């Protein structure tokens, strides 16, 4: 009786452990270290291909001349700024729900890169706005909600830095991140909901693309490059955070004693 019931329990436990194995910083640390260089290489290759298309293949825009070439970083950076926030909030929420250590670390690892892409989206937008709209900045719905996104990232990072106990900081930041998610659909739909100076979506799933195929190809390659870059950087930052927070653990002592 007991002999037969054991494998069932054992199976369930091993099934669970294979899913949750990488939820422990100890298992995640070497995995992230092994994966990060590949994502970095992919980012470099995709970025090189994207930049080549952006500057040497894509034609001059009929209306905006060469100024439009800012699109190849502006749109992918804006996508990443929103996407990274959603992923960050997802990890933060997971940490709040399951109280796993790694979730908070992942959220913290994503925040600086999200802030970086938000700033790039705003900066390139200003440099694009000046020659095409005649102004660096307007307080319209799209631009203002993207600026709020930057402040949400800054708020997350500031709160993390202000609370000494990392687990408490994770919980406080998770609440902030989850509340801030409401801003993401506002950014995304702002050009539809309000009358703004910002043009509509460049790419839409429901419509045929309104731009030349080579322009679209360059933009998608740059988006993929930013995506790979974000993954690589987030993995490396998560490793640094694990080192910082778990430095008293025995496995860290072994890991840094044996390898690098």
């Amino acid at each position, binding site marked *: 009786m007991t002999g037969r019931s054991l494998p069932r329990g054992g199976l369930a436990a091993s099934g669970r452990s294979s899913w949750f194995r990488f939820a422990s910083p100890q298992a995640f640390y070497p995995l992230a270290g092994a994966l990060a260089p590949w994502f970095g290489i992919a980012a470099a290759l995709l970025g090189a291909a994207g930049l080549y298309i952006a*500057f*040497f293949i894509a*034609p*001059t825009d009929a209306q905006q*001349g*060469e*100024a439009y*070439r*800012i699109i190849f*970083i*502006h749109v992918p*950076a804006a996508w990443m700024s929103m996407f990274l926030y959603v992923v960050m909030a997802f990890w933060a929420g997971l940490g709040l729900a399951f109280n796993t250590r790694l979730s908070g670390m992942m959220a913290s690892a994503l925040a*600086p*890169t999200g802030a*970086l892409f938000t*700033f*790039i989206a705003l*900066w*390139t937008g200003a*440099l*694009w706005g*000046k*020659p095409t709209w005649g102004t660096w900045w307007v307080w319209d719905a799209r631009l203002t909600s993207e600026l709020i996104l930057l402040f949400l990232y800054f708020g997350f990072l500031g709160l993390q830095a202000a609370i000494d106990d990392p687990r408490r900081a994770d919980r406080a930041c998770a609440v902030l991140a989850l509340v801030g998610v409401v801003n993401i659909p506002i950014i995304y739909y702002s050009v539809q909901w309000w009358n703004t100076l910002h043009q509509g979506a460049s790419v839409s799933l429901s419509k045929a693309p309104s731009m030349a195929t080579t322009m679209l190809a360059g933009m998608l390659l740059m988006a993929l490059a930013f995506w790979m*870059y974000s993954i690589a*950087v987030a993995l*490396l*930052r998560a*490793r*640094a955070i694990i*080192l*910082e927070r778990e*430095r*008293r653990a025995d496995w*860290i*002592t072994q890991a*840094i*004693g044996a390898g*690098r």
Partner: protein
Amino acid sequence: MTWNTWSEFFAMGGYGLYVWGSYAVTFALIAAEVISLRRRRRAALRDARSLRTSEGTER
């Protein structure tokens, strides 16, 4: 090919300041993030190692 000469390429049809200003800042920030990340890792490793020696745990 859109460009006949390199100076035409750098001029970007008169929008050089805006186009290159966008790309330069983007790549400068990406480089800064990678460098700061490397520093953070080194500092974390140093802290972890010094903790190990101060607690007297031998290799």
